[in-house]
């Protein structure tokens, strides 16, 4: 599995994190898992890059963090989207979709 998973582009990770959190607060491990599962095991978040990304997003005010209890009753740091984060996600999603559509149009042209 590790061998044929897709590499993430810089910036894409941020959007995926925001999207993962749009369904509710998660800790970092869960974010990685969610991305893997939802991508049909195609995308693998590089864990070493995940945490700096989370902290940067928190610093930018797109995320808020709070300590809570995990599903196995351990203390874990949960991240949650702020309203700024939600707006950012919307904007990035639209941009991403336009990008994908444009690239596709080029690639699919006979």
């Amino acid at each position: 599995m590790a061998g044929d998973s897709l590499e993430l582009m810089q910036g894409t990770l941020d959007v995926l994190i925001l999207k993962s959190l749009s369904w509710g607060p998660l800790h970092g491990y869960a974010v990685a898992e969610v991305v893997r599962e939802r991508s049909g095991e195609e995308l693998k978040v590089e864990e070493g890059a995940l945490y700096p990304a989370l902290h940067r997003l928190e610093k930018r005010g797109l995320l808020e963090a709070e300590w809570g209890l995990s599903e196995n009753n351990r203390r874990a740091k949960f991240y949650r989207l702020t309203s700024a984060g939600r707006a950012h996600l919307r904007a990035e999603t639209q941009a991403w979709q336009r990008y994908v559509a444009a690239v596709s149009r080029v690639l699919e042209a006979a």
Partner: protein
Amino acid sequence: MRTPMRYPGFKRLLKLAVRPRAVEQDVDEELRFHLEMRAAAHEREGLSPTEARAAAEREFGDVASVREECVRIGHERERKMKRFLLWDALVQDVRYALRMLRHAPGFALVAVLTLGLGIGATTAIFSVVRGVLMRPLPFAEPERLVRMWQANPSQGVARGEVSPLDFADWKARQRSFEDMGTWWYVEGMSGSNLSGDGEPQRLPAAYVNDGFFSTLGVAPVLGRALLAGEHQPGHNAVAVISHGLWQRRFGGDRTLLGRTLTLDGLPITVVGVMPPGFSFPSERVDVWLSDSLIEESGIPRQRQVRWQSVVARLKPGVSLETARTEMNGVARQLAEEYPATNVQTSAVTVVPLHEAVTGDVRAGLMVLLGAVGFLLLIACVNVANLMLTRATARERELAVRAALGAGPVRLMGQLLTESLVLALLGGAFGLLLAVWGTELLLAFSVKQLPRLHEVRVDGAVLGFAMGATLFTGVLFGLLPALRAGSPQLAPVLKAAGRGTAGGGGARLRGALVVTEVALAVVLMAGAGLAVRSLMSLLSVEPGFRAEGAVVVSFSSSPAGRTSRQYLAEVLERVREVPGVQVAGTTRNLPLEGSGEPAPLVLPGQSQESAADAPRVNYLFVSNDYFRAMGIPLLRGRAFTTLDREGPPAMMVNDAFVRRFFPGEDVVGKAIQWGDATAPIVGVVGDVRQESLSEPAPPLVYVHVLQQSRSSVNLVVRGEGAPLQLAAAVRQAIWSVNPNQTITRITTLEEVVGGSVARPRLIAALLGLFAVLALVLGAVGIYGVLAYTVGQRQREIGVRLALGARPAEVLGMVLRNGMRLAGLGVALGVAGALVLSRVMSSILFGVAPHDPLTFGAVAVVLLGVALVACLVPARRAMRVDPAVSLRAE
């Protein structure tokens, strides 16, 4: 219990108050959690715990560097948060303060008005003080400039002018000075009539030597200054003109240089234009001419003919003391070498130029600045009192906030913010008042102060206003804020809803009221002294009758028309004007200076001994001068037309007789006048010649037509409105010489008014400040008592219910208030007794400890305090016991 106020951002602040866990700890725990979760997943896939752990770490990558990066970002985030929270807290505080003020518009209005008045008045006075006293003179290195006078210690003259011969010796023998300049200029006297180039115009002129401009270190912006030995008889004279004249009259025409103007009928070539703002020795001077023109006009070149004013520039590093010692040495040498003329002038007075220019207004301005500072303090105390009263009323709210976790620093910060917001609003209003007040002040005091054209609201003044604002903000914010910093939470919370006043607060407020009253007393005492001083000045008998006389001043052209005949002709025409009863002329009007001092030589004394002779002032007047002025003839006769042409006759005043011939009949005695012996024909009453505050000097009157003098004040007494009379007189003068420029038209009463303009200005301003202080003091007393009565309503109700008579309640409240007022008055009187001493130099005819003034001030303040107490006291008397008990 009422709902507590909502504090936006409060929860966030509480969060900040909980000390956040160290960033490092957080990151470590977060990463450990991740690795453990991943390891657990691997274990579920069947790996051993050790293998699972190793796999998790392998997949993660470089844990240490990720940790480091996360920690770095975490720290950055914390710093950003802190900045944001601080700013946010400030914004919240300001918003909150503004909302509080909006909810208490009366309080806000009173506070802003009070502060605005205090700050505005202080700033306005400060701008004048700065312009007049503090700005350096607009010359190069002005601190090295000094003014020098010839002193005559034996006659008590410290500031005498210098003769050109003495000056030449001063200059040649000294080593302390780099450069020395001289000038001759007398306000309203030295001037030239510009003609031939448009409308004739009178130009105030200063006659200067070639060192004048170089000493001051100011060069012309156009052309050049006057050169040494430039003016030769028979050649055109040269002139340097002011920037103002250049713009006004010649529209800034650069080709003016080298052009020839006609001044007093003489051709004069313009060689230079001074820069704008150069205005020495007076802002009125428009033309600087070589002083050789004066000597040419017939002033004898003798050592005892002293008319030059001297300015000099100290060499770098030479002290004032060194220069003084040296110049006194020079004066002693000259006294030995020329005993006939210099034996008495054996000293030189050397004073920094700045002090010489501003000396006589310094005391008055400093008193005003001090007074206005007091006013600002009173305003601060008043607002502090208001704030304190509000803070006490808000004690419960503050206690609640403290209980919710807001630290003392936060609460003090909040209250200080409120004070500063108030102070800034007050400061903005004050600045408006200051700009406006400064203009008003300037408009009213143009003639009373030197250097007024340098007064403006500039950066320093703005800085001062800002400083005053912040100072007041902190000062009056401090007391309530300090108290809020340590509210005794438990008792206040317990009492919440019952509205009790803190006992400490009452004492503090009392102390503030006492302070305020004391400050007001000091201010009022100062104002009272100034007013009494002005009144005694105005009650001085000037020696002449001011009512109903008109003064028309002019300067007849020296070229050809100065003749005695011209003046005689003018006087004759004026007498023919319908309504004119009597008209006379004088060189020097009373209260405007004594004219020219000269040695009094009696027949038989040699001219050589003239230097030792006492000096008296000689005044040149016409026949009917005494009648026109209403100066009584005591003995002998007045001048007649015969004295004009015939042998000279003299008249003297009573002071002259008392000084030189006490108990003798002087009529018939003689004075040496030039080569002739002049009999004294009459004695007239004394006239305050210098000013109302100085006694009449001994005077000798000389018939004006014995001398050709260019400056004349025509005094006319007659029927009809003074200004109409003046217009007719002017027409009469023009009928003799249509080119005659009139330098001023005024009334004798205005001359008197002008002579007391400065004390009047000081008295008016101090009076204004005193009234403001009185009002503020009354507001302070009223505010505190009204508040106390409100707070004690329940207690008063109980007393009334228990049978106390309303009159007793009234008495209780009155006693309470009057005790504060009385204490304040006592302290204030004590303070004023000490402080009024600094005023002694500007007082006339009243002692700095004048009991009448102090008594009146005490009575007025106690009276006002009584009225301020009465309102709340009557309200207390009417408290309904039933209502206040039920409220319990």
